């Protein structure tokens, strides 16, 4: 009666879905694409980290953040600061009036490296900062909001405001942050040139592995009691509270986890694309990331990856072929998906494809359960 199947970490159907995605990312795309296109897909996949975090926060927990670009950007900036310092050796910057500091600082008449840039000389500290800075920032935001029981649309608006504020801050503090251009001209990682085709291929695979690590972490959370609590909180927050749970601490946790995922994505973006700028922090990218998640299906972590790939691929294709109308095309795609398939690509999978796979299985072994209405 009390089946154990639901407590198992992964069901056969989920294993197949993971395997298909792994085959696509690690085999099909690298074989089908040249280095330039593969690097482009690598860039898309960095957004998938954010989308996976949004599935946990928004899809499962009902916490809609319109400011995930903040955490993506902070992770990316931490990585970019390290790479920039490495690129700014006194020899490389000998023509500057102050050699040894990043070029944009020199252009802004800054003569010494600010103290908060110093830790980014160390690769170890940088790796810690990539996670710690966004997570601490997320914790402060989440603590302030969720302890006061701010939620829903108010939370979304405030996160959006934070994205706008951070963009303005970065642009305004040009001498310390590189301003609107961002941090550019990044060359080597611990002496390894990241601009070569070989490095780009390797980084693509590193990115893929990290993405799978995040996917498995997200999957674990959703399968744990915490995952079921998130769903319970989304539907009946008061009932959860009066069952003896401190609702705010769970929201803080999941928001910080989403921020950590986004930060890893941001750092990998910097490595693969070779720069970080405020255009990836602000309101527009933050909302785009929500669109990726919605198109993929906000309840499915794997769907979020496909949604990210599809929307970005469409965006690149539209913008190459129809530069004037591509934004309209993107908008049309979003509206079409939301109108026709409110649960996104994952809904299409669950309604149309999965039952047929189930059919195959139950023909082989009569023990498997009849396809029910999809659990999500």
């Amino acid at each position, binding site marked *: *009666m*009390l*089946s*154990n199947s639901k*407590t198992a970490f992964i069901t056969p159907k989920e294993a197949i879905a993971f395997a298909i995605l792994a085959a696509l990312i690690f085999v099909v795309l690298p074989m089908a694409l040249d280095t330039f296109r593969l690097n482009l897909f690598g860039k898309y996949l960095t957004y998938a980290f954010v989308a996976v975090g949004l599935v946990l926060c928004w899809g499962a927990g009902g916490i809609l953040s319109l400011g995930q670009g903040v955490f993506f950007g902070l992770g990316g900036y931490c990585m970019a600061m390290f790479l920039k310092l490495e690129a700014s050796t006194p020899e490389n910057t000998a023509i500057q009036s102050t050699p040894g500091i990043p070029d944009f600082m020199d252009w802004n008449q800054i003569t010494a490296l600010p103290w908060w840039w110093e830790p980014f000389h160390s690769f170890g500290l940088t790796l810690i900062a990539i996670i710690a800075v966004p997570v601490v920032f997320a914790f402060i935001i989440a603590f302030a909001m969720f302890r006061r029981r701010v939620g829903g649309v108010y939370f979304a608006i405030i996160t959006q405001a934070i994205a706008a504020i951070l963009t303005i801050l970065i642009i305004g503090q040009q001498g310390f942050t590189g301003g609107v251009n961002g941090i550019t001209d990044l060359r080597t990682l611990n002496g390894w040139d990241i601009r070569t085709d070989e490095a780009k291929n390797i980084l693509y695979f590193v990115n893929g592995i990290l993405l799978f690590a995040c996917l498995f972490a997200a999957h674990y*959370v959703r399968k*744990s*009691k*915490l995952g*079921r*609590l998130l*769903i*319970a909180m989304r*539907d*009946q927050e*008061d*009932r*959860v*509270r*009066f*069952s*003896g*749970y*401190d*609702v705010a*601490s*769970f929201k803080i*946790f999941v928001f910080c986890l989403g921020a950590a995922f986004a930060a890893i994505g941001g750092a990998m973006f910097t490595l693969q694309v070779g720069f970080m700028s405020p255009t990836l922090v602000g309101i527009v990218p933050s909302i785009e990331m929500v669109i990726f998640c919605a198109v993929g299906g906000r309840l499915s972590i794997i769907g979020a990856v496909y949604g990210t790939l599809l929307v970005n691929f469409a965006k690149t294709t539209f913008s190459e072929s129809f530069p004037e109308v591509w934004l309209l095309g993107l908008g049309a795609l979003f509206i079409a998906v939301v109108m026709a398939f409110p649960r996104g690509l994952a809904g299409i999978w669950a309604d149309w494809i999965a039952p047929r796979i189930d059919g195959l299985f139950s023909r082989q072994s009569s023990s498997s359960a009849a396809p029910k209405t999809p659990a999500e």
Partner: protein
Amino acid sequence: MVQNNPNFVLMVEDLTVSFDGFKAVNELSFYVEPNECRVIIGPNGAGKTTVLDLICGRTKATGGSVNFKGHELLNMREDQIVHAGVGRKFQTPSVYEDLTVFENLELSYPKGHNVFGALFFRRDDAVKARIQEIAEMIFLQDLLEEKAAFLSHGQKQWLEIGMLLIQDPELLMLDEPVAGMSVAERKKTAELLNRIIADRSVIVIEHDMGFVADIATRVTVLHQGKVLSEGSMERVQNDPKVIEVYLGH
């Protein structure tokens, strides 16, 4: 009435809450003994639900004191009040519709209530056995794998009662547990409640007088945020003040 009897489970004294000057509960005092089933009745707007909200921390009191086994509940957070041993059932059935009956009960099992406890919670045999036991008590043993959304109204009420039972609270507060139930369901619920209240204190809000007579140890009649009358069912029913404001119509 002996006011400082340490044998009281719950002592509500001078409890007051005012919403923009309107005193929904006005210097209310009452005392609940161990294993007592106290039924609160009263006309609409008498403040019945507000009293439960104040005890469980959902609404913040303006003044007074709620003492539960030596804990001052008015200074505690909702989840701390639950851990102290107070369970609350809402008026409309509040169950997690997207989860199964089993999962609904599991989330209420008193273990793994902080973030990391929940993250590493294991569904062991003790948990399963307890859920099975509760499910049989609330007549849902054959529906454990069913989503709560597909339950009938009465079954959802039972499920929520079960979610409270699995916490094993010392004080159980039920807000209209039989509202909207069929006659058969009502009878089963009365039977269920009679079994539950045997070893704990219960506060029930109810309108159905037949049902009240079935379960009540004592009855408190509220009117405009104050106690109008208190005592056995028989006494309350014959109180002329009660007949005038409530039972008369």
